[in-house]
């Protein structure tokens, strides 16, 4: 086992990793930017090294400084958290080359699965379901029509160079395709300078379902059930839960099996997440593999009792899985609300000094955060300042507990998304579990 782990991250995930290390008897080294010198994650570690100015590119993403910090502190492993260097194959490779263990998958795993087309190809080869789409760029209206008829309407035309919704056209029937194809090409050209477009099945109200997986160096792979992350705003997850209200025991087994197969096909190691789209008819399609620990990992911990960060560290140290698939039992229900320093209606960032901070407590309530009274929310980093996680015997109890925990949570001096979460919890559709990735858009419009 490692003697000393450097945590190449900040905020709640840095503290989360430090806590796991302490429980494993491993010494910890925090890194920090000049802006984070007073952060709780720095005080919680055994040692700390300043690695640069506030800008993440010059501090938390500064590979030479991060590695030097590991060297001068004598750390034998680095935990990257999420974001920053966590999915940087080059960083993982340099760690490997200088004999510092990167706590995560191999650099090859990261590189391969970071290429979404490649990941899709690997999974398709294994005969697993991926989102239906054209094989590549569409050269003509005829090609587009052929592909669309093969996939089935509705379809969405996307710019290959695209992003942010530009160059996209949803097409519901064959006779609308030609015009949409031309419009998408024209928009793609004017926006990205590249008229290349492709086409995919368009799902009307899909759910974002992801499966937590763990793989050891001996090729054993297990899954820890799914998470439903359908409550999103502009692809940013806001509220996650497990089990998904849309997944029953049979579907869980099936989607879990596919996730395990996908991971095995990629020769993946360590902890990871396989993301799927689930349509209204309960068909699911592989989207991608996240090669890091995820923000929402705590809800899986709450229902399985498995400490995912400790497992990540153990697996990175070469230890085998301590659980077999049949040992994984999901008890009760768990939800996570991401508390962001944002205006709860306009979503504008709200950095500043927290004048009063009082987290909720009691049975079934967990808070992961480095906030405290007097802490400063810096405009330099992500706006997520706390994760509020609840657990209950069933979804009903879990929701009631979340509602009372949100009411208890006091954060003053800045605006947060707590009122938004209260509103979501009060929504009848949400209460019934009738949600999809389009839920929040409609919810906010109403």
């Amino acid at each position, binding site marked *: 086992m490692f003697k000393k782990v450097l945590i190449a991250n900040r905020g709640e995930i840095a503290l989360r990793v430090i806590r796991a290390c302490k429980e494993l008897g491993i010494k910890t080294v925090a890194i920090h930017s000049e802006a984070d*010198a*007073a952060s709780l994650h720095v*005080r919680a570690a*055994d040692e700390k090294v*300043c690695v640069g*100015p*506030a800008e993440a590119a010059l501090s938390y993403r500064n590979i030479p400084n991060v*590695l030097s910090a590991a060297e001068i502190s004598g750390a034998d492993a680095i935990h990257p958290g999420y974001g920053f260097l966590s999915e940087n194959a080059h960083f993982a490779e340099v760690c490997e080359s200088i004999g510092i263990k990167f706590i995560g998958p191999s650099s090859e795993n990261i590189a391969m699965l970071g290429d979404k087309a490649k990941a899709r190809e690997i999974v398709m080869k294994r005969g697993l379901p991926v989102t239906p789409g054209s094989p590549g760029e569409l050269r003509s209206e005829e090609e587009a029509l052929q592909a669309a008829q093969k996939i089935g309407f509705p379809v969405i035309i996307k710019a290959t160079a695209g992003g942010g919704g530009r160059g996209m056209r949803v097409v519901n029937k064959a006779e609308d395709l030609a015009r949409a194809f031309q419009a998408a090409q024209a928009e793609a050209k004017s926006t990205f300078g590249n008229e290349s477009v492709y086409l995919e099945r368009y799902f009307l109200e899909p759910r974002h379902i992801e499966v937590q997986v763990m793989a050891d160096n001996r090729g054993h792979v297990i899954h820890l059930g799914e998470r439903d992350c359908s409550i999103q705003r502009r692809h940013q997850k806001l509220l996650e839960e497990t089990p998904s209200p849309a997944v029953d025991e049979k579907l869980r087994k099936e989607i879990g099996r596919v996730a395990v197969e996908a991971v095995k096909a990629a020769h993946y190691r360590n902890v990871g997440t396989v993301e799927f789209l689930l349509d209204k008819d309960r068909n699911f399609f592989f989207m991608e593999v996240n090669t890091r620990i995820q923000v929402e990992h705590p809800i899986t911990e709450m229902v399985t009792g498995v400490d995912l960060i400790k497992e990540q560290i153990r697996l990175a140290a070469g230890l085998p899985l301590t659980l077999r698939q049949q040992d994984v039992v999901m008890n009760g229900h768990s939800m996570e609300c991401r508390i962001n320093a944002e205006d709860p209606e306009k979503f504008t960032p709200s950095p500043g000094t927290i004048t009063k901070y009082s987290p909720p407590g009691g049975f079934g309530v967990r808070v992961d955060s480095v906030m405290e009274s007097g802490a400063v929310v810096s405009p330099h980093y992500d706006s997520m300042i706390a994760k509020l996680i609840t657990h209950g015997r069933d979804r009903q109890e879990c929701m009631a507990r979340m509602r009372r925990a949100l009411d208890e949570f006091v954060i003053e001096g800045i605006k947060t998304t707590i009122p938004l979460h209260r509103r979501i919890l009060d929504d009848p559709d949400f209460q019934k579990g009738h949600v999809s990735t389009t839920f929040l858009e409609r919810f906010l419009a109403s």
Partner: protein
Amino acid sequence: MNKRKPARPKKKQPRPIVLPQAFPGAQGHADTILTGTQTKQIQDLIDLLRRNNLTELELERQGVRIRVRHEVGMKTVTTSVQEAAPASTQSGNQPTASSGPSAEETAGMVTITSPIVGTFYRSPSPDADPYVEDGDYVKKGQVLCIVEAMKLMNEIESETDGRIVKILAESTKSVEYGQALFLIDPKATQ
């Protein structure tokens, strides 16, 4: 060859001692003066200071005198703690427990800080003479020291003409980003 050992020839110095919490520069003998508990207490004092918007907070106890300053008009906690850091850093070079140079002492001085994380060396090799000594007059662009990181020797140059008033880091010890290395009096002329 051990991959992790920098490829520095004839290196005989011990492996750099790890930075103790909250006292980036408090190394060597200073370790025996400031225990982990004490550094935590000092961190608490810093917290106290920033919560109370104080300008100065002084504590004397068991021969150790700690002095934390807070400039009027400071905006954020972060900045105030950064302000405090050099004062504690300097205690690393003064193991006899006196406080670091006060603001009055550093007024008008130029502080050369480390632009990277690494190991501080005052000379190009263990056998060679140091680049500079206390009291030396230096020119802008003159090499003052080396900070080694990722097997690379990074020469740190003076940003100004002037006289070395104080060397604030110890050779062979690790330095953080932004850690003060030299205090130079730019007004001093030879």
